[in-house]
C-alpha cells in the first residue's frame, strides 16, 4: 500500500483557504436555514443574529402559494363622474390589461398588473390593520368574558351583503376616518384619477368626481359546485367596501 503523500507548504495554504471558505459557506447556509425555519430552539437562540444577517441583502421568502394559497380575487372598481351628475358604471380598469396578458404572456403586462393590483391589495391590508387595532382597543376596554369572543371575530368583520358584521364597531366604515388619512388611500385616489382622466372628454364636459370600491371575490366551494352550476353562480360570495365620493379639483 502506498504511503499518503506528505502535505507540502503549498497544500497547507490550500487547506487554510479551503477551510476559511467552507466555514463562511457553512455559516451562510446555517443562518439561511435558521432564518427560513419555523419557530424552534435554534431560531429562539440565533433568530436575532440570523435576521440581522439576512435582512439587508439575503432576505428570502419561499411561501410560493403555501401554506394556504390566496384563493380570492381582489379588484379596485372605479366609477367616474362628469358634469353635474353623470356617473359611469363601475368598471375594472385592469380588464384590458388582463385580456392582453392572457392573449400574450410575453407582453410584459403581467408585471404591470402586479403594480395596479398592489393598489387594492395594500389598501385592503391597511384596512385589516386598522380594524385589528380597533378591535384590540375595544377588547382592552371590554370585560374579561367578552374579550375572547371579540378577538375570535377577527378579520371576519369585513362587511358583506350576506353576513352582518360580528364586530360592527370595528367595521371598515367605523375606521374610515383613519383609512382616509393613509398613504394607501391617497394612492388609490391617484390610481382612480389616472383611470378617470379624460372620462368626460367625449361628452365635452369635465370629470368632476370619482369613487372607488374594493371588491373581493371568493370562488365557489368544491362541495357547492353542482348547485352553483345549476344556478349559474360564478362566485361563492363577494366582499365589498365602498369608499366616499372624491370631488374633482
Amino acid at each position, binding site marked *: 500500500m502506498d504511503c499518503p503523500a506528505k502535505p507540502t507548504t503549498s497544500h497547507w495554504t490550500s487547506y487554510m483557504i479551503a477551510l476559511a471558505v467552507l466555514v463562511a459557506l457553512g455559516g451562510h447556509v446555517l443562518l439561511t436555514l435558521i432564518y427560513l425555519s419555523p419557530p424552534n430552539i435554534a431560531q429562539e437562540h440565533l433568530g436575532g443574529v440570523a435576521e440581522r444577517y439576512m435582512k439587508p441583502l439575503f432576505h428570502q421568502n*419561499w411561501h410560493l402559494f*403555501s401554506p394556504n394559497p*390566496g384563493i380570492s380575487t381582489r379588484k379596485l372598481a372605479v366609477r367616474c363622474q362628469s358634469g353635474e351628475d353623470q356617473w359611469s358604471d363601475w368598471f375594472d380598469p385592469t380588464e384590458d390589461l388582463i385580456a392582453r396578458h392572457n392573449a400574450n404572456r410575453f407582453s*410584459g403586462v403581467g408585471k404591470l398588473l402586479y403594480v395596479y393590483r*398592489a393598489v387594492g391589495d395594500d389598501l385592503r391590508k391597511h384596512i385589516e390593520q386598522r380594524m385589528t387595532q380597533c378591535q384590540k382597543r375595544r377588547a382592552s376596554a371590554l370585560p374579561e368574558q367578552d374579550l375572547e369572543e371579540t378577538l375570535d371575530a377577527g378579520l371576519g368583520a369585513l362587511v358583506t351583503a350576506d353576513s352582518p358584521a360580528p364586530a360592527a364597531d370595528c367595521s371598515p366604515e367605523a375606521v374610515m376616518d383613519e383609512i382616509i388619512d393613509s398613504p394607501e388611500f391617497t394612492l388609490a385616489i391617484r390610481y382612480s384619477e389616472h383611470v378617470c382622466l379624460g372620462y368626460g372628454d367625449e361628452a365635452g364636459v369635465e370629470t368632476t368626481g370619482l369613487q372607488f370600491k374594493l371588491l373581493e*371575490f371568493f370562488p365557489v366551494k368544491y362541495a357547492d359546485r353542482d348547485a352553483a352550476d345549476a344556478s349559474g353562480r360564478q362566485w361563492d360570495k363577494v366582499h365589498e367596501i365602498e369608499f366616499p365620493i372624491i370631488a374633482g379639483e
Partner: protein
Amino acid sequence: MSAPIIEHFSALRARTSRCLVDLCEQERHLHTQRIFSVAIYGWLLLGTLLLLPYYESLWGPASLVNRPEFEPSRWHHWLVYLSLHPSLADHAWVFVTGQLFCLGLVLTAVAPRLAAFGVYFFTFNLYHRTGQLLDGGNNLAILLLFYFVFMNVSGRATAWGHPLVRKLAIACSNAAFYLCRIQIVVVYLCASLLKLNGPLWQKGMALYYILQGESYTHPVAQDFVVAFPSIAMLATYATLIFQVLFFVLIWWRPARPWLIAAGVSLHLFGIGMGMGLLLFGLIMCLAYVAFLPADVSAAIRSPWLAASPLRVHVPANASRLRRALGLLERLDLSHRIVIETRQDCTGLRTKDVATGVERTGIAGFWAVMRRVPLLLPLVPLVVAAWYVGFAQLAYRRWLPGA
C-alpha cells in the same frame, strides 16, 4: 497489518485533504458556471427589455406606487436602496441603463467580475425602487446575482498571477457555485414543507381554487379545473410530490434528467403559461442549468470552443493595433482568437488553424472581426466603408505598424 478502521480513517483523511486542495485548485464546473450565469443574466435582460415599454408606469417618478423612504442611517440603504435617494428620485434611468450596460459586459465576458457586481448593484436598486413588481423569481435572481459576484462566470480558467490570490479566487468561485445549487434546493425545501402544512394542499384542492381566481390563471385553465376537478387534484399532488422529491433526488445523477424534465413542464407550462407567472416560471427552469454535470456542459460549449481557432501574430511595436485586437479578443465569446505578440513580425498576420489560410494587413484584421459574433450587426457598415475605401484609409491611419 493494521485494523480496517485505521485504513478507512486514513483513506477518509486522504480524500478530505484532496477535496480541500481541489476546492482551491480545480475549476471543475467552469463550463456549467458560464452556461448557468449566461442563462440567468439572459433572463434578467429579457425581464428588463419586456418592461422597458412601461418604464414610466413602473419606475418613473409619477408611477402608481408607494415607495419606502431612503434611510441614510442604515448602511445597506447606501448600497441597495440608492434608487430611493431623494436626489435620484427622477433618475431611475441611471439604474436601468447601468444594468443593461453591465449585462452587456458580463454576457460578453468583458471584465466579468466587475460587471457581475455592477449587475447586482443596479438590479437590486431597481428592484427596491418598485417592490410591487417582485415575485419569487426576482428573489431567487438577486441571491444568485450576489453569488455570481464571487463566481468565475467568464468561462475561462482563473489566471491571476499570485498563487495565493488565485487559490482564494478559485475557492470562492467553487463555493459560490455550490451555494447557487444549495440555494435552489432551499427554495424547494421551504416551498414543499410549507405546502405540506397547508390544508388545501393536503386535500389536493389548491390548484382547483388558485386557477379559479383571476390573478394567477388563464381562461382555458379556469374552465378546465371547473370541468375536471379530479385532474386539478392530481396536478396538485403531483406538484407536491415533485417539490418534496426535488431536494433529495436532484443530488442523485440518474434521477436528475427526469426531475429536470418534470420541473420544466411544471414551471414553463403550468406556472409560466397557465398561471401567467412567465418570468418566475422561466427562471426556475433556467436554475436547473446549475445541475448540469461538468461533462455535459463541456459538450454544450464545445462547438464554440473547438471551431477553427485563429492564430494572430502582432508586431510588438504596433501598440494601438494590439489594444484594438485585445478588445476584439475580449468580445470573442467563443475564445477562438489566439493573439501572440512577435518581435520578428513586420505587420499583422493571421492563420486559420483548421484550414491553414493566412492573411495579412486589413484582410487579417477583417478575419479577426468575423470571429466576433457580437460585431455581426456592423458587417454591412464595414463592407460599405471598405467599398468606398474608407476602411483601408482608417486602417492605415489609425493602426500604424499594422
